């Protein structure tokens, strides 16, 4: 179906007072970051222009009262979304990891814009359900655009917390001392300090080597001792890490920092969890973060059980394909290749819902590398981190490609505690966030990877492979379900922990009596694993790129119907007449 994209013009006040933002879905610009109101406007415009393909639902309100929006993309005319294999994607569960939202928006836009133009996407929107939540930590992401901040500030949900254990909540936030709208770094001249100016670039402050003369002492982020406790910025807003607040192997704060008071104590994680719990059709989940260029899966800690072999194959297949679609990104196991975490999204999805899930760490240090052919990598201690450019290298990138806009030069400031200091450093939309000109490729590759994954959702066909008269009124009926997708109709975890019912292979008919039935283990010898419970209804599943054949011994006459149905694959049916 070809549907002309509606150009929906919505005007609203954007971040800057007086600035108008117009959504033109036909000419969306993707080399820019969208603030909260703009994201909402785009979602509303998408829904308004494609009402038959979308639903826009608030999953709940955040701590500061903002809606947590979910855009469902699925063609209603081909069936309810909950009857189709679902793919879930969300972004900005950490409020400062904002390009995750753009990936979600771009994914939605790609599905809607290419619907009716690209055959594969049309088919996906007709046969799959996409659930897209662009801003889970909606409060902190909104503030990333409006409040003075930095690239690594604003990760937490806006749940007050006494970080410094002094009985007060969030009483010593960062301060924009020089009023430039940014929270940068502070340094003070100190011959007994720890750093010096890099001889290659005076903007760069580097740690001294043994025997070298120090010039600077680093003072951390821009701020004051607001509460007079002799410390600066030690109790900033939060800290509740929304990606440590999920219900699988959740651990309290003394084990896992930022986990919240109890599982799903935060509104964002709770809202998403309630939604996913009520959508058992979801078979894959993406949780977009920054940064590092990684597709991470669990186990997140030694407390988690291992991934069973069947699921490992699925993860490996998907992860390795991700490495091809998004070059440079690596498919890793978070607890093995990175560090221990408890209570994170992907573990909950997999262990509690039986849904495969990746945490995708968008963007890489090498995005802003400045290297020529043959330049030596300048990493520290291992392959994973070796792609990070040095600060000098990044300054060269800044100068050559960004006209110096990534960095605020050091400027003097009179600090009430430290005296004469300098303020400067990398700005908010840098480091963890790629320059805007690099965004389109990040968005496109990662969105297309989600779309590719959707093509790997269970994709069933159903055939009757045999109806054989056994004499004496008995008929042997065999039917086969074939799964063309890489994902099984149920993950091994969902099966081995009884998270969801097995799928059912059913034969029924008005004049039909079923004498026996079960999964056909060997079609040549007719070996069957019998369904002793109700032979007409065989509980089973179909692995990825695989088939499942069942056999029934029946008698009777007239029409009969064979159905394969499962939570994550929908249902397929064939009818036949008994011989």
């Amino acid at each position: 179906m070809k549907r002309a994209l509606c150009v929906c013009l919505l005007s609203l006040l954007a971040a800057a007072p007086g600035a108008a933002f117009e959504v033109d879905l036909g000419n969306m610009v993707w080399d820019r970051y969208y603030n909260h109101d703009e994201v909402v406007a785009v979602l509303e415009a998408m829904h308004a222009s494609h009402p038959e393909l979308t639903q826009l639902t608030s999953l709940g309100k955040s701590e500061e009262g903002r809606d947590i929006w979910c855009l469902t993309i699925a063609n209603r005319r081909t069936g309810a979304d909950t009857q189709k294999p679902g793919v879930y994607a969300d972004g900005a569960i950490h409020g400062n990891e904002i390009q995750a939202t753009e990936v979600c928006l771009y994914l939605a836009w790609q599905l809607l814009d290419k619907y009716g133009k690209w055959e594969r996407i049309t088919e996906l929107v007709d046969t799959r359900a996409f659930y897209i939540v662009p801003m889970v930590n909606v409060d902190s992401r909104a503030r990333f655009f409006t409040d003075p901040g930095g690239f690594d500030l604003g990760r937490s949900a806006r749940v007050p917390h006494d970080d410094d254990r002094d009985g007060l909540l969030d009483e010593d936030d960062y301060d924009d001392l020089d009023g430039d709208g940014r929270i940068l770094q502070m340094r003070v001249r100190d011959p007994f300090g720890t750093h010096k100016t890099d001889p290659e670039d005076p903007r760069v402050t580097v740690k001294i080597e043994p025997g070298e003369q120090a010039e600077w002492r680093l003072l951390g982020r821009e701020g004051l001792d607001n509460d007079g406790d002799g410390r600066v910025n030690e109790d900033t807003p939060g800290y509740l890490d929304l990606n440590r607040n999920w219900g699988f192997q959740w651990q309290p704060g003394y084990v896992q920092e930022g986990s919240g008071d109890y599982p799903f104590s935060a509104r964002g994680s709770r809202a998403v969890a309630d939604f996913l719990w009520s959508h058992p059709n979801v078979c894959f989940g993406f949780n977009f973060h920054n940064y590092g260029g990684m597709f991470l899966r669990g186990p997140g800690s030694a407390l988690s059980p291992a991934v069973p072999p069947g699921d490992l194959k699925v993860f490996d297949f998907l992860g390795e394909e991700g490495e091809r679609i998004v070059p440079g990104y690596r498919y890793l196991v978070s607890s093995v290749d990175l560090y221990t975490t408890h209570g994170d999204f992907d573990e909950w999805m997999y262990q509690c819902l039986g849904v495969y899930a990746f945490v995708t760490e968008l963007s890489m240090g090498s995005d802003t590398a400045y290297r020529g052919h043959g330049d030596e990598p300048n990493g520290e201690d291992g392959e994973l981190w070796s792609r990070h450019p040095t600060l000098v290298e990044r300054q060269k990138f800044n100068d050559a490609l960004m006209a110096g806009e990534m960095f605020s030069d050091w400027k003097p400031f009179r600090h009430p505690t430290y005296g004469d200091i300098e303020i400067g450093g990398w700005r908010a939309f840098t480091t963890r966030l790629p320059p805007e000109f690099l965004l389109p490729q990040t968005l496109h590759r990662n969105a297309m990877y989600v779309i590719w994954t959707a093509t790997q959702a269970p994709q069933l066909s159903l055939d009757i492979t045999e109806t054989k008269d056994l004499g004496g009124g008995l008929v042997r009926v065999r039917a086969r379900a074939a799964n063309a997708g890489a994902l099984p109709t149920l993950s091994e975890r969902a099966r081995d922990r009884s998270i969801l019912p097995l799928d059912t292979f059913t034969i029924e008919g008005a004049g039909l009596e079923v004498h026996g039935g079960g999964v056909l283990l060997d079609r040549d010898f007719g070996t069957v694993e019998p369904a002793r419970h109700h032979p007409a209804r065989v509980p089973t599943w179909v692995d990825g790129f695989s088939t499942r054949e069942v056999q029934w011994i029946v008698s009777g006459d007239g029409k009969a119907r064979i159905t394969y149905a499962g939570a994550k694959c929908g249902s397929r049916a064939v009818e036949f007449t008994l011989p």
Partner: protein
Amino acid sequence: MSRNKMPVLILAASVITVAGPVAGDSLESSLDRLARQYRRGTVTTLTTTPGGRPVPMLTIPPSVDPGVDTPSAVLVVADPLGTTPLATEAALALAARLLAGDPTGRAATVTWIVVPQLDPDGAARLRGEPATGDGRNGTAVDDDADGAVDEDGPDDLDGDGAITSMLLADPEGEWLPGEGPTGVPRRADAARGERGLYRWLDEGRDDDGDLAWNEDPPGGVIPGRNFPHGFTHWQPAHGPWAASCPESRALLAFAFAHPEIAMVLVLGEANTLLQVPVAADTPDPLLRKHSLPRGLARETGLDPLAQFTVAELVSLLREGLHQPQLDTDDVLGMLDLGPAGAPDTRDLPWWRAASTAYIRGLTTAGLGASRVAPPPSGPGAVEEWAYYQFGVPAFALDFWTPPLPLPTPPDSALAAAAGGVIAAKADSAAAAGLRLDPALEALSLFAASHPASRAWRPWQETTLPGNRRALVGGPAPGAMRAPPAAMTDSLLSRQIPLVMDLAGWLPRLASVTIEAESRGGEVWEVTARVHNDGPLPYPTAQGRRTRRPEPVVVTLEGAELLEGLARQVAAQVPAMGSAPVRWLVRAPRGRTLVVRAAAPGFGAASATLQPVPGGRR
């Protein structure tokens, strides 16, 4: 039993009589009536269960002015497993005595928050027809993942109004029936040439014909198994994750919103004062060596392959991380140790002391006879969350199990820990082999001597569909924790005072003192001391580790600070001791210094001083 039968509370002076079952539906009105009668206390609703029942809660203010705006509070949570009506009756009896002004000492100066039944759905099931003792709330769950919900629960085959046990004739069975109508089944002993004849199941049919019995009963989650410490995933009736059911979630949210809660008491099946939990297989982290997590080793330059004691690490990390204030608990938090598996060894002395006092109290009250040991706290238990995560002293208490008729088995450690009160446990040897389960044997004998209790239903033959023979009978639901009604008043009137006495273990910020020593001119070294006159430190060792209990904040006014902060924290105030906080100040002659100390759940106090030049006060 009538579902709607109202509890009858006869209150006369300090004698409390609670007769009859306590119906969950009527708890609110019972609490309301109590509050009205004594014109004290506030009844609120914690949440509503999946079965539509309210979970009421009674807040009783101190009967004696505690002298602080927000007094410490004791949270009492009864029957979280929905299996112990006696616990709810105990909570009501406790509330009545508190309202009547009975408590003395510390119990009179704290707020009591009483949740008499955390699992009203499960409790209603136990009172239901037939009575079922599985404690599940009203959430519909597909336990066997077959696509149907609650389709194969137990069945009252013999029509006696209770779901008991069933010995199902089965050539593959491992069990043999006991002797006589009240016999306790035992495993067949092949070594003695015995062949098993039965499977031991709950009473019921295979309602859905899937060759499994009672595998998908009505209801879903037991709230008392749904708390976040030690929660076990994928266990029937535990919930899909911790805090997934409204009852547990509401209690957690309430507790974290009330930092004045300084102690949690759980009335139900377990008793952690009779049997103090000990480390089974988790070595004390303070006594063993640790290697550093990779990232921390890199950050500090320490050898990631080396092993260090915690004490060594405190010293090394203070230097390596440039954090001179780092303490033992900070370091424990950095070591990726995971959740605590046993009480902090620094907390065991007070726990054992409380246990000793409690057992002595039981003995004095005439309740020192050997009885069946209550079960240990199970996974996801309220009391475990309260101690390990909420960071306050927390005890579980039960009120009755059947008496043991036999001499104490040779379990010296248990006997020693329990002071002789408890003498047996349902040990694995019994379950695995020849001996009868001593708890069941005790119940059987008790029932035989108290036939009116109907605690043990005689085995009767029945025939199931398909002509399968079965014996139905055995322990009645909840019987292991349900004394005959005639014993209830006596049991509770003798044990409720012991519950109230537990408030005496609370730490209390008794006072803050201040002294100043001249350092020349108008300069003074001022030392404030925060005094705790309670027998427990504030916070406990585990409380420090959790960082949950509010800190003791000490402030100084009236002087110019030269060293030290206007707002300082006393990390821990020892039991029956004090913690100092120091400043160097400049104060002109005649200036009054004011020091204040406060922490919700501990108390508040202030003191003043006018420094005297050249002297020390």
